[in-house]
């Protein structure tokens, strides 16, 4: 295989439409006679529903339908949405109902839907649906959720403990008994939102003649929605097609199947006209899954030289009101904590608790940023105690390259022993330090201090399991036009999958990238698919595309060899033709091959070749492939206002072989921006009663162009031995260690004040207060 495109900075095939306004997002799809829906949502974090009176709303002009839980099919009476990924550690497998019937468990939970001629009328009518609530005490802070006589977040179960388990290996008691130093701290990571710029959106169309549903959704997992619809409606999977058209960002929250994705199709079926629902930003902040609420109470045992002997502690994870994705996210946290370090003994006790807030589910980084924050903060503190440079203590503990593949001692979420497949972590850290001129920082700091400015530098490392199975499939087909069509189970929310998959196929067929059409995001393309999460698509869909393309390319060469009466080995594919190598040989175009193979009378296939110019393959990776990286952040902090500016950001990272550096760099830059938000800006606030306070983008701050520096990126490429392409995922590494690196830098900048950073996000008011308190303490002494 020639690799003209693999590894090249190929510009995206997606962009032409998107820069001219010709993109096709869910709300851009106009079907005749479409009606609009609006949801009535709970204004209480926890309440009993006493009664609902929809009569006034039903009478309003333009209103076609108002549904409450009582109006839904009888079969849904006690039916919750499917729980993706069940696990034995789950004690209370609670997911949402399509509409809440008796009890609302978070502010924003849907209790009724109104369908009207247009969105404005639907919203007007939704306001006229009278719901009487009897408020119940709410569980707001996960830290008090397990208090013995505290309130219940869900009255249908006996306690708030949703799940509990232990991850451990090695002799933890001995590790701590023999330690020269024990560092103990508590860290809290507060929740934020994924906040894709396009909110959620659903459009459903029912075809009475075929008794079938077509659903467009701004989702990351069309196949997941299809499975949920098949399950809820109890229909054949041939009766449902789910399409994710252009999707305006995902970042995790668009991975779940939400109640709206069940209720809107139901409405379309009842009315017989298309029904559309477009989430507004306020709804997004109230009813779309969030992430990060975790409390880590952890200890690190070290020997006199600063080598880690053991890690132990507890992890308290706030799942919100439900467990839509089971315990995947806290499980990832619990297995990410050892990170790229040699940790001989380990024990982490994880408790997952219900609160009366919107559920948490994987969001860019998926539980890893919290784990990385915990271990990296511990290492910084240990360095302080031992009087070591922060880079040096890490150097002493990083897993050496010779130890690869490295068995950590834990079981990962794919059920396999957690084994890092490849990489050179010490080298990667060194690359980051060199690029950032870590050694020269003290001079920069001194210069800034002389000008009255406080600079700080911070470092954090991470390892990330990517490319999870179970599988993804792809079909490569030669079209009658001679073009190549790829049909995949992949869904894309801006990652550029079309381009990258086309690059892989283009190399196999010896054609240009724009000779390859790629279908993504449509359940009609491939019968089964899994979805875009856990940075898994390049490993899974990429490998499936590679194999199916290679298979079909071989067939094209076989046909050409027979037609041209040549040896198979002498046939090459190039520029849309199959030809005999060397100047004298003949050639046959892809288009002619397609014609021959289409079963037309008068054209016959060479003997021994089966008809059909199509190859399908599925790729199921043996285990996760581990990306890794090291981030260095430089910040300037104003101790008075607490304002932090990230002045410089360096990423050295290894995601195996890079198919398109332009796009990987883009993923990293975007991921770092998200991480900066997590570190110093994004905080989803709730009041004591569990009412969300930050429900607009004016209250919930996203990083803007002024907050995010140009990230300096250096690549290492340790090919993964686990897939034919040698690739690993790259979508989340920019985010994972960012809060840890920035926390380290802020603490470093404030070292004259002796401030400790234990939480994220660190908002200006928090930092200013920490400085003030530290100074007051100093003065008191």
């Amino acid at each position, binding site marked *: 295989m020639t690799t003209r495109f693999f590894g090249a900075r190929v*510009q995206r095939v997606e*962009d032409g439409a998107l820069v001219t*306004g010709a993109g096709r997002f869910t709300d851009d799809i106009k079907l005749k006679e479409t009606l609009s829906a609006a949801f009535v949502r709970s204004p209480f974090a926890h309440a009993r529903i006493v009664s609902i009176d929809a009569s006034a709303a039903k009478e309003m002009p333009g209103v076609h339908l108002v549904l409450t839980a009582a109006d839904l099919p009888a079969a849904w009476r006690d039916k919750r949405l499917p729980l993706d990924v069940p696990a034995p550690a789950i004690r209370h497998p609670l997911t949402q109902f399509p509409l809440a019937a008796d009890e609302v468990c978070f502010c924003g939970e849907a209790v009724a839907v109104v369908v009207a001629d247009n969105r404005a009328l639907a919203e007007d009518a939704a306001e006229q649906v009278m719901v009487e609530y009897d408020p119940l005490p709410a569980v707001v802070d996960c830290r008090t959720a397990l208090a013995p006589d505290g309130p219940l977040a869900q009255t249908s179960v006996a306690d708030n403990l949703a799940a509990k388990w232990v991850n451990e290996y090695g002799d933890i008691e001995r590790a701590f008994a023999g330690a020269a130093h024990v560092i103990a701290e508590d860290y809290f990571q507060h929740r934020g939102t994924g906040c*894709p*710029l396009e909110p959620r959106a659903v459009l459903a169309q029912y075809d009475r003649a075929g008794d079938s549903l077509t659903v467009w959704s701004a989702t990351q997992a069309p196949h997941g929605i299809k499975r949920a619809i098949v399950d809820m409606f109890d229909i054949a999977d041939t009766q449902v097609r789910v399409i994710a058209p252009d999707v*305006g960002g995902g970042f995790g929250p668009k991975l779940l199947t939400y109640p709206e994705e069940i209720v809107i199709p139901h409405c379309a079926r009842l009315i017989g006209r298309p029904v559309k629902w477009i989430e507004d930003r306020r709804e997004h902040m109230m009813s779309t899954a969030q992430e990060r609420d975790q409390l880590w109470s952890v200890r690190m045992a070290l020997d006199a030289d600063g080598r880690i002997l053991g890690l132990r502690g507890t992890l308290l994870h706030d799942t919100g009101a439900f467990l839509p994705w089971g315990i995947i996210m806290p499980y990832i946290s619990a297995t990410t904590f050892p990170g790229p370090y040699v940790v001989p003994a380990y024990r982490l006790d994880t408790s997952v608790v219900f609160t009366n807030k919107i559920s948490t589910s994987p969001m860019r980084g998926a539980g890893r940023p919290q784990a990385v924050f915990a271990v990296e903060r511990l290492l910084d503190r240990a360095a302080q105690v031992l009087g070591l440079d922060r880079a040096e203590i890490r150097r002493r503990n990083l897993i050496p390259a010779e130890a690869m593949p490295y068995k950590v001692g834990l079981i990962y979420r794919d059920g396999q022993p957690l084994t890092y497949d490849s990489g050179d972590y010490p080298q990667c850290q060194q690359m980051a330090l060199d690029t950032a001129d870590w050694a020269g920082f003290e001079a920069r700091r001194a210069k800034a201090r002389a000008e009255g400015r406080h600079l700080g530098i911070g470092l954090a490392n991470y390892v990330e399991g990517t490319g999870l199975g179970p599988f993804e499939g792809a079909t490569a087909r030669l079209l009658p036009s001679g073009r190549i069509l790829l049909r995949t189970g992949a869904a894309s929310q801006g990652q550029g999958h079309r381009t990258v998959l086309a690059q892989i196929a283009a190399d196999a067929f010896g054609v240009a990238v724009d000779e390859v059409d790629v279908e993504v995001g449509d359940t009609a393309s491939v019968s089964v698919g899994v979805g875009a999460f856990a940075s898994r698509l390049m490993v899974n869909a990429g490998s499936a595309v590679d194999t199916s393309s290679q298979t079909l390319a071989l067939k094209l060469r076989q046909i050409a060899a027979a037609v041209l009466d040549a040896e198979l080995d002498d046939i090459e594919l190039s520029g849309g033709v199959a030809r005999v190598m060397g100047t004298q040989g003949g050639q046959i175009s892809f288009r002619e091959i397609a014609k021959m193979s289409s079963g037309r009378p008068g054209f016959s296939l060479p003997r021994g070749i089966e008809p059909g110019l199509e190859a399908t393959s599925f790729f199921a990776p043996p285990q996760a492939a581990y990306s890794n990286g090291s981030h260095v952040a430089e910040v300037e902090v104003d101790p008075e206002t607490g304002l932090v500016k990230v002045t410089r950001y360096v990423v050295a990272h290894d995601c195996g072989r890079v198919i398109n550096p332009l796009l990987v760099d*883009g993923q990293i830059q975007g991921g770092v921006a998200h991480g900066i938000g997590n570190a110093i800006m994004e905080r989803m606030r709730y009041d004591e009663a569990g009412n969300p306070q930050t429900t607009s983008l004016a209250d919930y701050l996203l990083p803007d*162009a002024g907050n995010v520096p140009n990230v300096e990126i250096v690549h290492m490429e340790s090919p993964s031995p686990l897939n034919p392409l040698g690739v690993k995922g790259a979508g989340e590494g920019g985010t994972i260690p960012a809060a840890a690196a920035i926390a380290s830098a802020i603490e470093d900048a404030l070292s004259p004040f002796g401030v400790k950073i234990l939480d994220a996000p660190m908002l200006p008011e928090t930092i200013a207060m920490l400085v003030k308190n530290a100074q007051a303490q100093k003065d008191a002494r």
Partner: protein
Amino acid sequence: MSAVSIRVTVNGTPFEREVEPRTHLADFLRHDLGLTGTHLGCEHGVCGACSVLVDGRAVRGCLMLAVQADGAEVTTVEGLAQVEQLNPLQEAFREFHALQCGFCTPGMLTTLMQLLEEHPEPSEEMLREELSGNLCRCTGYAGIIRAAMKAAPLLKAQRENAA
């Protein structure tokens, strides 16, 4: 609510339509005229995705009522390319990977068109400052800033040629 009649010129084409007084400009463009390139990310004036040019100035389509655009010239993202040919800013967006999902892109492009016309030789710092009212969740802005820097002189040359 009784509809009001308005006339607007959008991307060079005159339209006369009846609109409800409460319809904002972005919805009018998207739903009444079918110009779905203008996107809505927040509907409360913060994200900038809905930015369009009204008489040459970037405005938030979600904060302006359609009736307020009566008599105005509106340019949306659909009006930026010349027949079959991307303008230099659109080209540069592609070259520097200044978009991922593309949802913020129309607002970025329209805002930058005005900005680069007013500041033909921008500094990176100024661009970052001026663009801080347009949010992008995907790219981390680096590609957008690079694209704008590259396009600035090209757009300037284009304007001078046209003049």
